[in-house]
């Protein structure tokens, strides 16, 4: 049975950072990326890629994601650049008036910069954090332990459910079902039925799973003992606060600009 993990083993500062801190920084960086001008988004993405590489996570480890992102990154601005709006100057004519427009290209670059930066941040988070750390990160931030438990449970069972899906498909194939023949709609409908059967199969085991968890005293205490992660270090708290302040200032700056431009 394979495990569900994107983790790349290492001992860098990013690997060692407390998962709860990483989670908060990830959320703040997410917001910052949205708030800053588009060239800075690209700078964020590039910095994250370089930083991640420096932490021992080579781009080769996530080359598929990188490839998909690169395709989207190139396609979105180009398609957007072809979409002319009134007053948008033509910067690269292809055929007569048809060609790439400046504002369109910029808007496309802004969008793809946002997605690329968020994608890189997500890769940084997932490749340097173990699934069990990720599951427990919210608990250490004061969120009810049931949330961390549910996340751990989901991570624990996802590979198993995937295996059940493949097993079920095999069972159907042995009875003469072909998933690769017929009209697309028929094949889609077949997959829907397979998923429904999988759901029924998984739900039939829910009772036992819930009994097993309950028999171990789950939900007995509102605050169970935190045994998975160590408390968040002070330095991390200071870091979270600093980044939080920067994000707050940038958000306030954006809000002020927005209201000023509206009143003007």
């Amino acid at each position, binding site marked *: 049975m394979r495990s569900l993990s994107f983790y790349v083993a290492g001992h860098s500062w990013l690997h060692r950072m407390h998962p709860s801190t990483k989670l908060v920084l990830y959320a703040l960086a997410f917001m910052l990326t949205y708030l800053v001008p588009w060239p800075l988004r690209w700078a964020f993405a590039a910095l994250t890629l370089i930083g991640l590489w420096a932490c021992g996570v080579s781009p080769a480890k996530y080359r598929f994601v990188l490839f998909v992102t690169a395709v989207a990154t190139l396609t979105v601005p180009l398609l957007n650049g072809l979409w002319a709006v009134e007053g948008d100057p033509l910067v690269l004519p292809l055929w007569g008036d048809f060609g790439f427009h400046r504002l369109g290209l910029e808007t496309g670059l802004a969008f793809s910069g946002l997605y690329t930066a968020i994608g890189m941040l997500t890769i940084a988070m997932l490749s340097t954090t173990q699934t069990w750390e990720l599951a427990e990160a919210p608990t250490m931030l004061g969120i009810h332990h049931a949330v961390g438990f549910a996340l751990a449970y989901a*991570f624990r069972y996802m590979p198993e459910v995937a295996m059940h899906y493949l097993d079920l498909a095999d*069972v159907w194939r042995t009875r003469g079902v072909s998933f690769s023949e017929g009209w697309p709609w028929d094949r889609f409908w077949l997959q829907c039925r397979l998923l429904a059967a999988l759901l029924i199969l998984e739900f039939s085991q829910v009772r036992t799973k819930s009994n097993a968890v309950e*028999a171990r005293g789950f939900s007995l205490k509102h605050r169970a003992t935190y045994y998975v992660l160590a408390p968040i270090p002070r330095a991390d708290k200071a870091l979270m606060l600093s980044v939080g302040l920067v994000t707050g200032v940038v958000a306030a700056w954006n809000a002020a600009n927005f209201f000023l431009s509206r009143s003007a």
Partner: protein
Amino acid sequence: MSALARIEALRWRYSIGPWVLNDIALEVQAGERVGLVGRSGSGKSTLALTFNGIIPQSYAGQMGGRVVVAGKNAVTTAVSEMAHDVAMVFQSPDDQMSQILVHHEVASGPANLGLPLSDVHRRVADALSRLHIEHLADRETSTLSGGEKQKVALAAALAMQPHLLVLDEPTTDLDPRSRAELVQMLESLEDGLGIVIVSHDLDTIAPLVDRLVVVDDGAIAADRSAAEVFAQPELLSTHGIAVPQPVVIEHAQRSGQDPETLLGHRTRGAPSVATQVAIELRGVTFAYPKTSAPAVIDVSMQIGRGEIVAIVGNNGSGKTTLGKLMLGLLQPTSGHVYLQGEPIERLRPDLVGYIFQNPDAMLSQISVLEEIAFTPRLLGRADWREQTSHMLSRFGLADLQARYPLALSKGQRQRLAYAAVTAAGPPIFIFDEPTTGIDKPGCDQIMEYMDALRGEGKTIVFITHDMALAARWADRVVIMHTGRIGHSGTIGSLADLSDDELAHYHLRLPPLLRFARTPVA
């Protein structure tokens, strides 16, 4: 002395259906090991769930009587509160792991009790070392084998430091090696801990229990010391429980019975393998993608038409992969598979019927009728209506033909799965672990069905880790070990294997077979 657990006048029925527990009275003393035995559906698992209040608290139904464990009323005390005193291990190793890492799994119970962190760590270390599984501590639970998972579940239960440990069919889903290891671990648990083991497999739990409670039809049929029960084996067989083999042997010796008849082996005329080959494998090797070692290595064998062949071996020995290669579900990396003389390049439901371990996974249609007609219709059989109707009556499902398959009882669902595969009329059948988790009457029913198919000239291959089953029903046994055929021969040839050879294959010869083959002095 006051009992650790006391059940008085207990009655229980689920919201739909009749009473499943009737006037149960039972006591378990501290340090006592009690076996709750009975056929499937006798109510023994339901009874076990009352010890920590899962019944009646987590199920809708009607209850009467009292259940008191360690001075707490299990009927009204929250299940999570009962966890201080009662720990449970369930049948399926896959359904009781909630955490990603093993040491987190073991720690989850004590942490739920709100113990100080140092106590949680101490309990985890204690539990893992008691069961000698410290090496698993940092493993991900999803990557463990079934036997390892069950050991971790036991460690997690022990970390709760309960007064009473309830084990609901803990060995059913395990291979013989893991089963023996788990039993050894349970035997090593110290005195003072009350243990209730639910099982229909007395061969496995006999060495563990002081007392046996026979449950049948929701009532206690007998409650005696294990020695007293074993002195009256007919008491067990009357209630659908397989008598432990050492007990059978002892009685046979006393009564001077012929050892050969004990085995109950169905003697038949051996089919002519040389002239009528149903399945042939020539130098078959198979490796799963991204794995270093092949799962099946250079296997060559022939199975004659009308033969029943058992493929035995421990988990990971390659027996299920071999079955899937015969089926055409997997294509060999090298070598060839021939069915009825034709090379198999794709799945052929008209040629091979495959019965999976979990029959529920085979049911996908909206009615019993549709389920049976499914494959014959896909195959374009002109006589699918007649065939479906024949199967409905043959498997006793005619009155249920409009019902939704998954709404049927377990036995009916199993019959339906068999009917659905048989309806395609394949000459070859492969059964994957057909009797796992099934009691003796159910097991006999399945094997009788195989025997009937054989009577119709069908070829049967069944994959199992139950050597006793193979010895009783198969014409030939193939032992798989690390992807290769370790041994292939008649049942009689098994007795020629030395203890070292059997240990090498991680198998044990059933006592009955060993006894039956022992030359009379």
